């Protein structure tokens, strides 16, 4: 028996591993371009959130049809990867269906279940393709989806379809060969779904069938490895990042905005309230709010890499629904694109963050930021607990405090608040005037 296939397999596997590690390092570094933030309180609640939202797909089921189809793709991904383990071991040891002899009847049941899942993944992906390209579900045709994002989505679906077809084709050829008693092929038993393909292959010669089976095997395993690398370049990273992303969810009430302690110190000093801050001011005076990705928290950047561009946020955003430029999905895509740009520049020895560009202005405009009603619909809608609002509000802080670039009407509101302690221009002394009417009225018993 030739060791050549094993050698080739090992080389491919190592190369894939090498590239994957490199890509993971790149992504990790990009995410950590964000500011340090410690968010690991209430670990029990965090694990529970991760189990329910990521593992259990809880929030997906707000929209039943896509949730149902996505559920099969997700279970298929989890379960068929068990088969990939067998593939890898077979590839390394030059064996064939390594687990079959040990599992007996269970192996047949497992294979039938895998085939069922493969068919369901295939069907789901076809329906998804139709939803994107024929039915044109509105959230997939928004302006930010033009070009690469639309292509990325379609590519992923096509790759998954082809990979699933390879499994079925391989099993069909494999079982015909086994029934002919060829070499090391093992009769597994009746495989229902790939059995349906037998008529196509039965007339083929044994030699050609071996070629078909091997080709499908190699295609599937090399395809999966290539796909794993592709995922790191695409929106599809949610298959891994959904888990840490939900673990690091914001567990506070959604209405709450994070306090800025640096401002508290200054306000306390102005009002003559003793502060707990150290007497020495920090050596580096940070920026107020966020202009670029390094002003955001690393969790915000991880959010961006976890986004799979499903657009549930945008489809529930009141600003977007009424034709404003703001799209929460675009905010997340912009953060990721900027992180990628800075990361690539740094790797090429370029200027990185100092390239004269920034998230604000070059990616996200004030018009978008100003359109937000902070209603939290996007946060609520996200199936993996991404928080676009946190980013929008941080960027508004930069615009207001570093650029004084807020709209004129807001500046007027600020002024009213400074002088009359209300957003409208009324005399503070008139605050109690409403009571006159209540005092005058007799309350009947």
């Amino acid at each position, binding site marked *: 028996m030739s060791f050549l296939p094993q050698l080739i397999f090992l080389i491919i596997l190592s190369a894939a591993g090498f590239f994957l590690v490199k890509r993971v390092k790149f992504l990790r570094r990009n995410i950590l371009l964000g500011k340090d933030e410690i968010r690991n309180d209430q670990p029990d609640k965090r694990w529970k959130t991760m189990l329910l939202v990521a593992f259990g797909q809880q929030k997906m089921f707000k929209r039943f049809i896509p949730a149902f189809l996505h559920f099969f793709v997700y279970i298929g991904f989890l379960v068929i990867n068990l088969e990939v383990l067998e593939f890898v071991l077979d590839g390394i040891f030059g064996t064939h269906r390594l687990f079959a002899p040990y599992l007996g009847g269970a192996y047949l049941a497992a294979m039938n279940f895998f085939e069922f899942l493969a068919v369901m993944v295939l069907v789901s992906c076809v329906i998804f393709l139709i939803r994107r390209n024929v039915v044109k579900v509105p959230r997939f045709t928004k302006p930010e989806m033009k070009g690469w994002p639309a292509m990325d989505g379609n590519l992923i679906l096509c790759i998954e379809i082809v990979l699933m077809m390879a499994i079925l084709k391989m099993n069909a050829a494999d079982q015909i060969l086994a029934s002919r008693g060829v070499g090391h092929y093992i009769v597994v038993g009746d495989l229902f779904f790939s059995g349906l393909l037998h008529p196509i292959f039965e007339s083929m010669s044994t030699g050609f069938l071996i070629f078909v089976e091997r080709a499908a095997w190699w295609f599937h395993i090399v395809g999966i490895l290539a796909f794993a690398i592709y995922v790191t370049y695409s929106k599809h990273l949610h298959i891994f990042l959904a888990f840490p992303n939900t673990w690091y969810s914001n567990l506070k009430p959604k209405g709450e905005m994070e306090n800025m302690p640096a401002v508290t110190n200054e306000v306390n000093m102005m009002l003559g309230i003793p502060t707990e801050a150290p007497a020495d001011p920090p050596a580096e005076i940070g920026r107020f709010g966020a202009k670029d990705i390094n002003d955001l928290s690393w969790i915000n950047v991880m959010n961006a890499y976890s986004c799979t561009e499903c657009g549930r946020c945008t489809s529930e955003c009141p600003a977007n629904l009424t034709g404003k430029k703001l799209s929460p999905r675009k905010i997340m895509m912009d953060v990721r694109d900027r992180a990628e740009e800075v990361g690539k520049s740094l790797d090429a020895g370029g200027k990185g963050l100092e390239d004269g560009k920034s998230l604000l202005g070059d990616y996200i405009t004030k018009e978008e930021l100003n*359109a937000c009603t*902070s209603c939290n619909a996007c946060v609520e809608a996200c199936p993996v607990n991404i928080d676009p609002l946190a980013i929008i509000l941080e960027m508004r802080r930069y615009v207001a405090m570093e650029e004084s670039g807020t709209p004129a009407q807001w500046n007027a509101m600020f002024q009213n608040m400074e002088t009359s302690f209300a957003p409208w221009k009324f005399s503070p002394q008139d605050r109690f005037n409403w009571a006159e009417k209540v005092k005058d009225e007799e309350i009947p018993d």
Partner: protein
Amino acid sequence: MAEMAGKGESPEVLFWVGCAGSFDERYKAVTQAFVKILNKVGTSFAVLGPEEACTGDPARRAGNEFLFQMQAVANIQVMNGYNIKKVVTACPHCFNTIKNEYPALGGNYEVIHHSQFLQQLINDGKVALKGGGEFKGKKITFHDSCYLGRGNDVYEAPRDVIKALDVELVEMKRCKTKGLCCGAGGAQMFKEPEPGKKDINVERTEEALATGASTIAVGCPFCLTMMTDGVKNKEKEAEVKVYDLAEMIAKDMGI
């Protein structure tokens, strides 16, 4: 409040009126209705009057953290000075800010929204509803305020209050966690909307009108303004009224 403190009394609860409740012509009626209910049931309460300042919510949402904290710290000094323990307010923005954002600045109070307060009064039997008032049997829809609903997960209290009026509560297509904003949150109340194809309050009002309800119930001054404007925009102000929960309860109580 200053009066009470002068007499050495301390109220059970501080009613945080808010800027809209103090100055907005329409929302003053809500403040008055709520105060009448409090007086009627004999709740010991106080208001800060001229000592109250804006919570700072719109400044913070518009990005001006300095101004927010200036307002917040001043308010906290006043409230802590009076040793306030419990706060009730008819504004979800004030509610959210005092409840969630003042603790980081040294203001720790038990804060409830007036819908929750009314719900408690009804549950405790303190508010005796006639049930035969002008709302009896009518279709009423409730518009969820973002800062009450999604912001703080209060969905049932306002609905329980409405149901106590012996009415038919009809839900809009987008309600509770999926409720559509009226368009005023995040300091939008204080500026014109960005260019678009429609105003958010009109979109929301259309949805409310589609339920066939004769009353749109709200629990927020900004929502009240936005929905009222929306109903006017649709020229339905003769058939459809927009009321705050406290007004509805006060009407039913005949006060």
